[in-house]
């Protein structure tokens, strides 16, 4: 997923999009798009949040059932 976003913003031979004073226009044109990179950062942080919540729930589920086997845990019918 994150790779997909990075690919969207990538150019062949691109460089990091950091603007410095008196930079040649040729370098500016080779910048990769920074916006997808910002999106990926956000998505990683969100992913971390979801993962930690998931692990916390797994621990509580293990305490209840003593197993991670979904066929034992599963009671709800959907």
């Amino acid at each position, binding site marked *: *997923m994150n790779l*997909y*976003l990075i690919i*969207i913003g990538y150019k062949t031979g691109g460089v990091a999009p950091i603007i410095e004073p008196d930079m040649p226009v040729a370098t500016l044109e080779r910048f990769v798009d920074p*916006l*997808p990179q910002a*999106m990926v950062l*956000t*998505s990683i942080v*969100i992913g971390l*949040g*979801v993962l930690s*919540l*998931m692990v916390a*729930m*797994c621990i*509580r*589920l293990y305490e*209840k*059932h003593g197993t991670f086997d979904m066929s034992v*845990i*599963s*009671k*709800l*019918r*959907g």
Partner: protein
Amino acid sequence: MNPLPLYVAIPLGAAFLIPLLGLWWKKSGETLAPLFTLILGIMAVLQVGRPAAVYHMGGWPPPWGIALVSDGLSTLLLIAINLVGFLCVLFSIKYMQRYTGLTKYYSLFMLMVAGMNGVVVSGDLFNLYVFLEVASIASYALVAFGVGAEELEAGFKYLILGSVASVMLLFGIGTVYAVTGSLNMADVAREIATQFGGQMNPGLLLAGAFFLMGFGLKAALVPFHAWLPDAHPSAPAPISAMLSGVVIKSLGIYAICRVFFNVYGIAAGGAGSVIFANAMIAFALLSIVIGGILAIGQWDYKRLLAYSSIGQIGYVMLGIGVGARVLATGGQISIAGLAILGGLFHMFNHVAFKSLLFLSSGAIQHATGTRDMKQLGGLREKMPITAFTTNMAALSIAGVPPFSGFWSKLVILVATVKAGYTAIAIVAIVFAFVTLAYYIKVQREILYGTVSKLVEKAREVPALMYVPLILLAIACVGFGLLYPVIGVHILEPARDALMNGAEYIQLVLG
């Protein structure tokens, strides 16, 4: 001053303040959460009739900066979210007393409100996604709040399916960005309208499918509904009321409307529009049929309500989908307007009666300790207020005149017939009677009949719990009778916001 950022800032601030003050002040959540949600609710109601507004975050004008936009549709959702949020918090004060970690509960609750408010005022696709995640993560935790085996499993299931939806949405947003080079919704809409001239680009078609799947999962439309019948019954009753009352609407229906009407410009027609409109109608019909059939066989009261939510969301989607199809195929605009109005009206009504039903299920569980319909009965004698309000909501959702549910279903069905989809309308009418059937079951098994052993000892719930029920019951009747007022001031601006895609672009980009 423009109040738009406050809709996110107030609940977000409250979410951090409550656990912090909770270290010294045990009642921080019970005091601050109702106060702040009430303030937000009043702010949202005062926004009715004001012209649409745009706020530029950090002073950056769009399309570079993130814009917050409030138009008719946002106002409709803001009123629903914050007022129902207030009533649910009020109900929580007594209901949640048997749980521990209450400051965390109110903190998560306010986070969920912040996320939903953010979704409905956001004018930027990625910002919408972030707020959607805020609301979703808070709701995953709230579903599992009871930390029993069942609650954890339901929460885990909801988390996994919710994450799948998030990945879909992120793929969609990435694809839209790749095709149009912008994330601002108005800017994307302008790009789609000008660059492709209404013709659907394959990338946009793919992104649209991702959006329909992702938001459809949040809205629990039928092929993506599997999490809802587990998550809603397992959550504490005020959270079920929030989930069913506003979460599935603000994260699901609202987002679908906003993306397809204002960004994709479905109203302007074009090659892809008809496909999306057909998909919406198909999902809507599946939801109506499957939600209705599965609800009849349920004996767990909250589970029945959860399946009924799926069915009713189907009606909302049907109105919107028929409106979209009529517009996309170049039919009469008045018919499309009627269909969309019906869909939005049903959504607004569903907020009132489904929240009421879930809160009443909480009151019943609080008083009797069960939600198994076989063990209940004769509640009318022991808990007259709860029984009376439940009755009002059941009649309203089943579509008995003159309650609000009747009028909104009538509008949807009339519009569907007028648009020429008679077969679809017949299915919808048949399942309106199925709705009536399972709510008669609710009345017979819970409210009337012989007083069962568990009900014998039941007492009416405390005032803090039945006052929200009474207020929502008044809303159920009021929305039907006061339609001229509500329709003109709240629903019609929302409908116009959806139908005039060009106005939205003009509003944000100026």
